[in-house]
């Protein structure tokens, strides 16, 4: 079974490993050089090597899968604005338009052409969640994207390796911490340089003119294998539906998964319309990207992600729905739509692949805290995880992030960097859903202000699952919902929204956050699987 006469199987394996190693190296460089807490602590970034058309060839082993599917959409869109012929060696393109890039403004996409012997062989690309992009700092209660910060159209960030000074000025004038933001863009461009150098070396070493033959071999091999994996599933359509917290009204998520001769379609038709008063909308590129990442994880996790893995997938979302929102809808917390859709996809697919999916994980969302201490501003970001969903294989682990690679900030570091004092961080035992296998437990964390400091500290937050819990699967029960208490008063989602998506702490206020438990699997008390 020779895929390409020019590249035999053993060489393909060797070269593929090499490219993954190149992406890993670039990711490590980006991770370490970034000063964004969200990149450094939360791993909210990715890099990619693409072919000349922008189709993704490899991603790092450890980075945000949410970005995997959109890279080629973004690169292709950039090339429509700035054609290949207009690119020179050393150029780096930039864009954060949610409808072209990754669905919200803080995720900034950069791409640099890889020149070998004077012609473009592919692109080095990366996306990173920067510390600040101006605007409303991740508030959920925005109505239009214009409130959410600086929207950077496709343009050149670096021109032949030199800063595009007008673009730099626009960015610097619009963000709160310009040095940190520019540093992070340079961290991305630095990762691109590693990719450019390594690809050139590899092509030279293996005596190849470009990436095309290798990329085609990787795409073909991955696509064949993914189609084979899909063909193992029974043909037909399976459906699932779930309600999850919206801004005011709940979001209704409808998923229909159709398997048909080596293709798999996820159709969101029937889901809620786009939200006009809250920032929980997802542009199509983002919906597509998270959906194909979820499908790849379910069906073929051992094959490194690339364009070929995604080729057998179709993602349908009606225009104007929450999964295909139009400009200028507010999109900041678009994870409310796309991350909550993941367990619904798994619930649908349970009918055809019961051992490959898990019940819904308890997803908790993220928190900022900002204010002033002795007149000096501070800003910090932190996340607490909920419990994982249980599965046919076993119980869900307690306190684990899903679906990304996030990690938590240590209590001691939060207290060093802010006037917050954490009174308690413990597992909420029993908060995972009941079942033959129990869902993972959530946790509680209690925040206070350090004695002698009166505040105010503003805590913008976008907690998920305050109203609707993580559902169980196959007869398993739901996890316990997330809860927010301010001084023992339970703050409902509506109250939180009325307060602008942020709570303000003063004096001896206590903010108690409960993260949701994961869904259980199988009816409780049924015999062991």
């Amino acid at each position: 079974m020779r895929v390409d006469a020019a590249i035999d199987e053993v060489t393909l394996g060797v070269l593929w490993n090499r490219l993954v190693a190149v992406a890993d190296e670039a990711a490590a460089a980006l991770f370490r050089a970034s000063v964004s807490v969200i990149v450094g602590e939360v791993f909210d970034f990715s890099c990619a090597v693409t072919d000349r058309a922008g189709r993704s060839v490899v991603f790092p082993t450890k980075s945000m899968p949410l970005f995997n599917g959109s890279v080629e959409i973004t690169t292709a869109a950039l090339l429509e604005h700035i054609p290949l012929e207009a690119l020179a060696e050393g150029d780096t393109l930039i864009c954060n338009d949610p409808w072209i890039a990754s669905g919200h403004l803080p995720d900034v996409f950069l791409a640099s052409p890889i020149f070998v012997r004077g012609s473009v062989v592919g692109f080095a690309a990366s996306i990173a969640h920067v510390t600040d992009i101006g605007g409303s700092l991740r508030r959920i209660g925005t109505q239009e994207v214009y409130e959410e910060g600086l929207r950077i159209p496709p343009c050149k960030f670096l021109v032949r390796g030199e800063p595009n000074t007008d673009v730099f000025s626009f960015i610097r004038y619009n963000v709160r911490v310009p040095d940190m933001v520019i540093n992070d863009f340079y961290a991305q461009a630095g990762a691109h340089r590693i990719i450019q150098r390594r690809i050139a070396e590899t092509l030279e070493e293996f005596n190849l003119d470009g990436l095309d033959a290798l990329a085609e071999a990787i795409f073909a091999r991955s696509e064949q294998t993914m189609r084979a994996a899909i063909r193992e599933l029974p043909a037909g359509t399976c459906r699932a539906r779930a309600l999850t917290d919206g801004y005011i009204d709940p979001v209704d998520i409808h998923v229909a998964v159709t398997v048909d001769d080596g293709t798999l379609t996820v159709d969101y038709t029937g889901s809620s319309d786009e939200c006009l008063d809250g920032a929980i909308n997802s542009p199509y590129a983002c919906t597509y990207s998270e959906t194909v990442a979820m499908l790849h994880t379910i069906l073929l996790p051992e094959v490194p992600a690339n364009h070929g893995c995604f080729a057998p997938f179709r993602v349908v979302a009606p225009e104007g729905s929450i999964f295909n929102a139009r400009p200028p809808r507010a999109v900041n917390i678009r994870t409310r739509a796309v991350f909550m859709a993941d367990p619904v996809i798994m619930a649908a697919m349970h009918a055809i692949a019961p051992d490959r999916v898990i019940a819904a994980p308890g997803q908790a969302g993220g928190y900022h805290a900002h204010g002033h201490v002795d007149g000096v501003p501070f800003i910090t970001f932190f996340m607490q995880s909920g419990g994982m969903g249980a599965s046919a294989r076993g119980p869900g682990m307690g306190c684990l992030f899903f679906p990304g690679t996030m990690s938590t900030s240590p209590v001691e570091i939060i207290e060093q960097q802010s006037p917050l004092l954490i009174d308690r961080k413990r597992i909420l035992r029993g908060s995972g859903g009941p079942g033959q296998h129990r869902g993972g437990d959530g946790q509680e964390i209690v925040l206070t202000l350090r004695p002698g400091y009166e505040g105010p500290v503003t805590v913008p937050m976008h907690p998920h699952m305050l109203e609707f819990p993580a559902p169980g699967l196959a007869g398993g029960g739901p996890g316990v919902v997330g809860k927010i208490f301010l001084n023992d008063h339970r703050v409902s989602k509506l109250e939180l929204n009325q307060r602008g998506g942020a709570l303000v702490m003063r004096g001896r206020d206590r903010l108690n956050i409960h993260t949701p438990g994961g869904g259980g699997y199988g009816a409780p008390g049924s015999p062991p699987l």
Partner: protein
Amino acid sequence: MNEARAERRWLVGVDIGGTFTDLLLFNPATGRHRAEKVLTVSEAPEEGVLRAIKAALAPEGVSPAEVPLVVHGTTLVANTLLQRAGAPTALVTTAGFGDILEIRNEQRYDVYDLFSTFPEPLIPVAWRFEVAERVLSDRTVLRALDPGEARALVERIAGTEAKAVAICLLHAYANPAHEQQLKAVFETVAPHVLVTLSSNIAPMAGEYERMSTTAANAYVQPRVHEYLRRLETGLGAAGVRSPLYMMLSDGGTTPVAPAAAYPIRLVESGPAAGVIAAEELSRMLGQGSVVAFDMGGTTAKIAVLTEGRALRSWDLEVCRTHRFKKGSGLPLLVPSVELVEIGAGGGSIAHIDRLGLLRVGPESAEAFPGPACYGRGGTRPTVTDAAVVLGYLNPEFFLGGRMRLDRDRAAAAIQEHVAGPMNWPVRQAALGIIRIATAQMAEAMRVHLSERGLDPRRFTLIAFGGAGPLHAADVAATVGLSRAVIPPMAGIMSALGLLQAPLSFSLSHALNQPLSALPWEATAEMFDRLSRQLVQTLPLVRDGPAETAYALDMKYDGQKRTLEVPVEREWVEAHGAASIRAQFERIYEVFHGRVNPNLVVQVANLKVRATLHQGLRGWVSHTPVARDPRRGARPVLFDGMSEPMACPVFDRYALRAGTELVGPAILEENETTILVRPGDRAEVDRHGNLIIYPHAGGQR
């Protein structure tokens, strides 16, 4: 010391591994040495040590009393954690934080795995105790520890079966007073309980990693104490009067007392010893840019040396649920040699994956059943099986002829699992297995070098371990390293490293200040205090000539990872923020290619390391055995060929300095086999090292 006496001084290095206990008896005056291998006695490891010492000394006519130095490396700590064979251990935390050990850092180590699992916490919830107290990050006490409550808590723990207790309170790295008060109560109320304080074992910010380290230290301590006591008693009874030194994970050795207080620092004792030997060889070769490559049965380990020294860090992980997935284990803040471990050893299993591509590892046939060619029931093909089929290994001379290898079983395993399914000839499949294994090691090496901005062409490979010398030339060529060096005794480098390691210990203290606001007097004072503490820990350091090295862990504000930056003590005395920042940025630029003069620089920790060179400095010269080195030829298949060619075979022990070879050639010694590929040049230097200059083509 007169010569006759010097000639009777034999040093002993003894390394306990999972299967074998290796011993090297070495006479620095004459260069004579003797290696001994006995089976490890897992329930009483000291017995293997004592047996090996007796077995080695007797034939040389050496009395145990004449041994001036015994250095010991052991897997005891690593195995105790892996097998959960530690003592019942209690944990004391600040009220509200007893679950931190179980909550971990909440990160999934493999984002494409929906079913990730983690090791159970070392200390289960029933053994975790909370105490009302609170210290803040600025050292102030928010809530004092109540003496009555402290006493009640200790009495409660004393009433359990706990033999050890780990105490980890919030911000104790900044203010250890409450931890120390609790320890004092234990000493009066429950003196039989061994106490580990987080402020002592790993005084750094970040409660999960510190608590994990504290718990692990307490958990292994009773077992290590008992073992060391039995070993010292046994050595004494055998007539050995020299002090015993223990090998630590960072390549330093210490007397027994500090090792018993910080037993978790022994966790990587064996692998560190191999790196020490590579550092010593690098010094002797005058070649500071080195990749140390240690390939054994299950894994290959890589360490990068710059200026003759491997990087040290305080960032280890053990008991991974997935051996090669970082983040799936228990983190330990333990000073250690930085090693990259890859799932490519002689026993790594080859298979065809779902994509229809050939893969090697990470699954390993381990020592049992082992590769198919061992004939112990293994049926799946391994790297060693491929090497036998290709003629690289001599089935009649494995481990110096102590073991026979079965070529037919090797070929059958490759046929069934690789060649058959792919419709390839068996020998081509075997070449494919070697290519893939080589490529994996090469990728790891390349990434590790380039992450630090290092150019492979300036580096020399030093290959050792049972399987390292076989793959050395191929790996070197693939990565683009200029040459590969295979020292004499490459198969037992770790035991040699034990004897070459310096006496050394490190201590740290948390600062967590911007560089611009560093309290200079307090910092200088802390350097002094830690230096004094080191003298107390290692009394021998007082007699010098000891070296004291100072370092700061630094980062840009907002970054998670710090860099260890060596600093001069004088810079601190002169309030030299500019010198320190320049040094930080010099190192930062190596790692990241670019510095950022606009950002605030933070200082997380300060560290002091005292070192006293007392071991063997200089390399062990090899005296060739006077016999004909030629052992005829055998058919060997190399990459790019369709038929085997006759490859000359040599006896490594008989090769003289100055010998030059052009590949193909195979060199055999008892513990390892060296492959010189067609077109490679090789020479034996005056110390007996084989230096291979690989021709340009690596594995593609």
